[in-house]
């Protein structure tokens, strides 16, 4: 079973910002610049509302998705005929409350938060597991770092992600806030950054002023129960609201080219459970489980499996 072809059309504007979405889509389909030599695509993705060939695509029988930054950018034809609108927004966006939204568009709009990251590429590391890694690496039993600030525990940018993965707690401001939360890092940030990503203080992260942040993080580092609850809360926020993988899945599902929602084949069901529990695609646990199951389900066809396990 081969993945469905998703034809890409663009032009006129720089579409490099869409690269993370295209990468995430590769889990579910084969995104490729529209090319007759590759055959007829299952659907078309326009990288902007002014993409070259969009009008023709909208007149075709193929489902069309359009990426835009503002719904007001869409032409009347696009509003009427597009199967899906992917709306890139800087923060939480309520399409139902947007006066620019034609009511019929609401159900066809997928919100893509610009801060979103691919959760599948960020393993959840609880404070306990972090402490085990520090033990293994010979690092201090308690370790606080600061990213994007000049506080008491600064870290060079090149070491930022690795530091976020093993620290006890972190002060984080700026673009690495969402990756930090995705890793399950107990995070301290300022009120502005928290609001920017829709995070709630004491549920997803801790909020403190610049002068207090270091001390708050140091205190969090020695409170494992609170740190673990915050780390998990932050991870869940990213999984629910800021996961590029969910945007990609919602897009291909809305285009009608995704996998069936409830796989019937035993191997696919098992694989779906592995994925739902957060098991990395090529982890020994996934491979062992699927091989054992395949011993009664017949020769394993990895392409039968759902999602990212292929």
């Amino acid at each position, binding site marked *: 079973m081969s993945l469905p072809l998703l034809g890409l059309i663009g032009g006129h504007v720089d579409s490099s910002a869409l690269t993370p979405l295209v990468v995430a889509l590769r889990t579910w389909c084969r995104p490729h610049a529209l090319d007759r030599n590759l055959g007829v695509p299952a659907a078309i993705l326009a990288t902007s509302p002014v993409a070259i060939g969009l009008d023709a695509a909208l007149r075709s029988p193929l489902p069309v998705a359009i990426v835009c930054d503002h719904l007001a950018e869409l032409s009347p034809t696009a509003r009427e005929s597009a199967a899906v609108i992917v709306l890139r927004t800087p923060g939480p966006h309520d399409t139902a409350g947007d006066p620019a939204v034609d009511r019929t568009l609401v159900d066809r709009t997928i919100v893509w938060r610009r801060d979103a990251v691919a959760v599948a590429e960020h*393993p*959840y*590391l*609880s404070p*306990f*597991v972090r402490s*085990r*890694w520090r*033990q*293994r690496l010979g690092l201090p039993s308690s370790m606080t770092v600061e990213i994007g600030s000049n506080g008491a525990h600064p870290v060079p940018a090149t070491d930022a992600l690795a530091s976020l993965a093993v620290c006890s707690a972190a002060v984080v401001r700026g673009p690495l806030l969402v990756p930090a939360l995705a890793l399950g890092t107990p995070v301290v940030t300022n009120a502005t950054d928290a609001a920017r990503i829709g995070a709630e203080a004491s549920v997803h992260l801790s909020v403190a002023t610049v002068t207090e942040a270091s001390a708050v993080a140091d205190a969090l580092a020695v409170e*494992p*129960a609170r*740190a*673990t*609850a*915050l*780390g*998990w*809360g932050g991870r869940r926020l990213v999984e629910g609201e800021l996961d590029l993988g969910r945007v990609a899945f919602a897009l291909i599902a809305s285009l009608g080219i995704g996998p069936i929602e409830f796989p019937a084949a035993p191997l696919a*069901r*098992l694989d779906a*459970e*592995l994925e*739902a*529990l*957060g*098991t*990395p695609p090529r*982890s*020994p*646990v996934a491979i*062992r*489980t699927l091989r*054992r199951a395949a011993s009664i389900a017949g020769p394993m066809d990895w392409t039968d499996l759902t999602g990212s396990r292929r």
Partner: protein
Amino acid sequence: MDICVCGAQVPFMRGGAEALMENLVAAAEDAGHRAELVRIPTVWDRERIFDAALAWRMTPIDADLVIAINFPSYFVQHPNKVVWLAHQHRGAYDGADGPWSDFTLDDQGLELQRLLTEWDTRALSEARRLFTISGVVSDRLARYNGLASEPLYHPAPLWADLRPGPTGASVFCPLRLEGNKRPGLLVDALAHLRTPTRLQLAGRGSLADELIAQAQRLGVADRLDLLGFVSDAELVDRYAGALAVVYAPHDEDYGYVTLQAFRAGKPVITATDSGGVLEWVEDGVNGFVTDGSPAAIAAAIDRFADDPALAEKMGAAGRDRVAALDWAPVVARLTAP
């Protein structure tokens, strides 16, 4: 309602969790429900430990309510899942690197530990209600998984049979003769006793021969009674006839021995690192909480031997301490909408 109590099965092993599951089924039936125990075999080595979790994940159960008791049964999926947690796989958490755990600091061990933590947190988060059997288990759940839970205390096995009896001259302890129960510590304490008090240990385990050798080496073999397996009736009698109960395991989840001792009107001597036992024993009120050294345990035993009236008084306080324990409110909480 129709209730499935879900629990792990380790073939040929029986302990507190098994008694808990069986007694919960009986209590649920007493409350007018239909209840059954559902168990799936489990192993503890890290290579295979995820297999049973996935088996639970893929096992469909038709019931009005499922109550999961221990790892990995809480991986069961059900729209009305309640967890009453006796324990997680402690070898991957507080027991890591310990003598009975294969979760070590190598690459694979760390990744499996990471994955198990994530799996556990997700599966336990699904529960409509999350209870534990003790504050100690709730604390671990908060520390390792960041999840809030409510301790729900229940009576120990033989609750209806246990009764106070005349204060005897021996201290008693029923336990599995395994490292985490620290029977050797009690034998060590014998060597520090000033009084001729005897120690009766009931139960079997891999340390039996070692304990005999230890007692001989310390010159206290004539004051150690290794009773082996004892019947329920004998267990009740041993409790009733003891001077006190000495029980100092390492970080116990709950500790039926403490509850049974109190139910039988006997004070309990324990240690500061004995976990769930400390939720019941109040130093100087219904027993003694020692620093866990053989000398301190021996001193506590000697105090009761010198003053049996003190043992009776503290034993009575212990009996009062557990007087409210009953299965009916436990079942009511677990089955509440």
